[in-house]
């Protein structure tokens, strides 16, 4: 799906836990996430801490969407 959305002309950022799969699939902007069953959360944190973590990841995704890239890029910290 990521690749087809990109092909249609929309910049897309893939937020996922298993980065090698994302690369194989052909995503160009990749933001690694927390864990498979809760990519954008962490149940062991308090609700507030968890939301702050999620915000940080989403902000990273927004930054990826604003970054010029020429090849598959993993946006680490």
């Amino acid at each position, binding site marked *: 799906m990521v690749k087809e*959305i990109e*092909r249609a002309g929309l910049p897309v950022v893939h937020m996922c*836990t298993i980065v090698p799969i994302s690369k194989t*699939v052909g995503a160009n902007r990749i933001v690694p996430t927390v864990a498979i069953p809760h990519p954008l959360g962490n149940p062991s944190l308090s609700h507030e801490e968890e939301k702050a973590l999620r915000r940080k990841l989403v902000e990273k995704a927004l930054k990826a969407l604003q970054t010029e890239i020429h090849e*598959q890029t993993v946006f680490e910290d």
Partner: protein
Amino acid sequence: MFKVVHYLNQFFANIGGEEKAHIAPEVREGFVGPGMALNNAFKGEAQIVATVICGDSYFAENTDTALKQILEMVKKYNPDIFIAGPAFNAGRYGTACATIAKAVKEELGIPVVTGMYIENPGVDLYKKDLYIISTKDSAVGMRDAVPKMAALALKLAKGEEIGTPAQEGYIERGIRKNYFAEERGSKRAVDMLIKKIKGEPFETEFKMPVFDRVAPNPPIADITKAKIALVTSGGIVPKGNPDRIESSSASKFGKYDIEGVFDLTPETYETAHGGYDPVYANQDADRVLPVDVLRDLEKEGKIGSLHRYYYSTVGNGTAVKNAAKFGQEIARQLIADGVQAVILTST
């Protein structure tokens, strides 16, 4: 008799399903689960001396540590051959089998065999490096897969010459080998041409690699003006799954209105996705589809707006062909609605 170490995930080792996918690597003496059929298929020429087991999520989330532990376990038994899976169409399991098999082969110098369905993401990652027996997409194919894996494993252990992918049943690795053909090239080429003209099937002798990459689009110039859409393969749906999206091998995607929705709650949203533990997503679907945070960012003017609809499907064992079709249709609708960028989340 050759010594074999076998690798399985928590499911095939009969430990449990998703609720046990977080278990760390462990080793057991002898065979476990499908190892029994493998052992029988060796017909006394080889024997599984130990089985290494690891949870799929544990391996995916702690790959470096898990890989190190597993290599130590394998090394201890000093096997003549290492077999992983078969993993069929299970993505995390296939990736784990291939990653471990590659490390065993390269770091311990032990021949390896695994087995997968052609669309398993582990295939594209490592088919060049490994013998991956081509299997069906589910455990129904165990009976076909086991004898082929056993036969290839024995050949490797004995150092015998390995035949073509078609002869041995493994997935093409893109390796070319010289051989003496019975007829010369010009005749073979003309024969092939005539078959082609007649519309008969023919087999090329020079397959071209298939690359399907899409170049990245230019970035968003001003994100504070951009309309951003959420798409997920994590199966987040309104409670009750109104479109009945399948928990695996999805045949459709859903489009859901989130106007006025500021937070996904356990009363209103859930996941339809099988194949991962749904507890966390059902408690708070924002953990997969970050609507709450995007609403905050929208309010603060950090993004232009969050698109009124989000799109969702289940990525579990879904055919690549279907996923591509969903992606095309979703993109068409998003562009028609004036969306400028997409955040796609996966579990």
